[in-house]
């Protein structure tokens, strides 16, 4: 059983990772911040159930994931007030050529990041959770299974399908901007 006095030293170093996880789960900065804050509060309230020495990231991610699910269940339909949304990546992308982007590494990374975010948000929730727990936190299959209350086989299947879907979605972008060599980037079918 963990002591609340240890919470700061155990939890805060993982805040960035929790934020990354939240951000790619919900796709929006403000909502990600809210989720992280709620997660920290709930984690503090339930810290006596955390076993010291075990993986805090996994434990907190489970809280965050459940909070996200609860929020989305309660959410009312989004209004169509387009002016209040964050500008979409397409609004910046169109005037620039591939060459111009390739010459600016920071811009390229930003574009790829936007593409990745878009592709991840297109995944269904279960696949998104699985791929993010792996890509952000580096959790093992068993840890992901514990966080999501799923069998390991299901975790492996979700990871496989999520990765396959992401590769398909990102293939064109990757070929154009050199993330994948074009002759190698084609998605192979399983034999």
């Amino acid at each position, binding site marked *: 059983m963990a002591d609340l006095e240890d919470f700061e030293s155990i*939890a805060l170093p993982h805040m960035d990772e929790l*934020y990354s996880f939240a951000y790619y789960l919900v796709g929006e900065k403000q909502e*990600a911040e809210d989720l992280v804050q709620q997660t920290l509060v709930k984690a503090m309230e339930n810290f006596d159930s955390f076993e010291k020495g075990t993986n805090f990231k996994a434990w907190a991610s489970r809280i965050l994931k459940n909070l996200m699910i609860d929020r989305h269940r309660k959410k009312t339909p989004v209004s169509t007030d387009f002016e209040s949304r964050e500008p979409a990546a397409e609004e910046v992308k169109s005037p620039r050529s591939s060459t111009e982007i390739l010459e600016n590494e920071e811009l390229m990374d930003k574009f790829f990041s936007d593409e990745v975010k878009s592709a991840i948000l297109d995944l269904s929730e279960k696949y998104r959770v699985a791929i993010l727990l792996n890509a952000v936190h580096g959790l093992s299959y068993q840890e992901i299974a514990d966080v999501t209350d799923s069998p390991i086989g299901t975790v492996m299947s979700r990871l496989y399908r999520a990765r396959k879907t992401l590769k398909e979605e990102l293939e064109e972008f990757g070929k154009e901007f050199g993330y994948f060599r074009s002759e190698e980037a084609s998605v192979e079918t399983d034999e």
Partner: protein
Amino acid sequence: MKCEEARKYLYALLDNELDTERNLEVLSHLNVCDRCSRRFDREQVFLEKLSETVQSEEPDEAFRERMEQMVRERTTRRSILKRIFSFFRRRRMISSSLFLGGAVAILLGFFWFTTAGSSLQSNSVVQHMGEMHRGFTQQNQDQEADLAVRTSDPESLRRRFAPSFNLFRNHIVIPSLEDQRYTLLGGQTKNVSLPRSPLPGFVAVYRQTNGEEKRNYVSHQVLDLQNTSLDSAQFQSLREEILKSSDTFRVVDTGDVKMVLWGNENMLCSFVARDVKDETLRTWAKNTYRQSLQFFQERASRG
């Protein structure tokens, strides 16, 4: 193993989820099959890029500070209340007199001033870097001669240098290496230069007790990162420095300790870390996982 079967295990291999036997089977196939090997490399690149991208999304500094403050306030408040209730519960004095009120006020003030500024990070990174130099060289001889502290007792060496490492001196481990037939000679201060600020450290030097004229030395360098936050540029610089001199790389996770091993034909280095961010090790491991495993298999078979 055939291609179809090897491809079933590719992701598990990349995720470090295979047992040793299966690991070797798949790697052996990759060594002889160009097609599967190329696919492995592509998947590795893709996963690395994906991880790198999602992990690069960071919160604003203002948000970070707000959360840190919120956590500190809540944990301090609860800690104080817990101690007060515990104190009164033990003494069955839950009545509100002016005297008790005053005592609580003093207690609150005391705890506030002593704990509010506290920011102990129990998972600070303490790293060891070991180098094994094969053969007797002038450098080794000088190394033995230059030791500031001479002792064969690891605990004495730790007590001598660790106090300068501030709060987490108890995390530092200096192995005795007697099982590997090395004798501790002593130690000296040794810092590591990085782009913006040096990393303070010290080194423990051992000599191999093999009775031969040709001597092997091992040095374990301990770096204190507690008060240093390595930003991505500094970590990149450290990583490049390591990879420049190495052909291979491997990550070993014993459960308590994570160890990164790297080297070339003439040198074997180890980096023993507690609580280093997983993604850092995984990124390094994925880069040369296949080659490093092969390297250590070959070394093991040579003896």
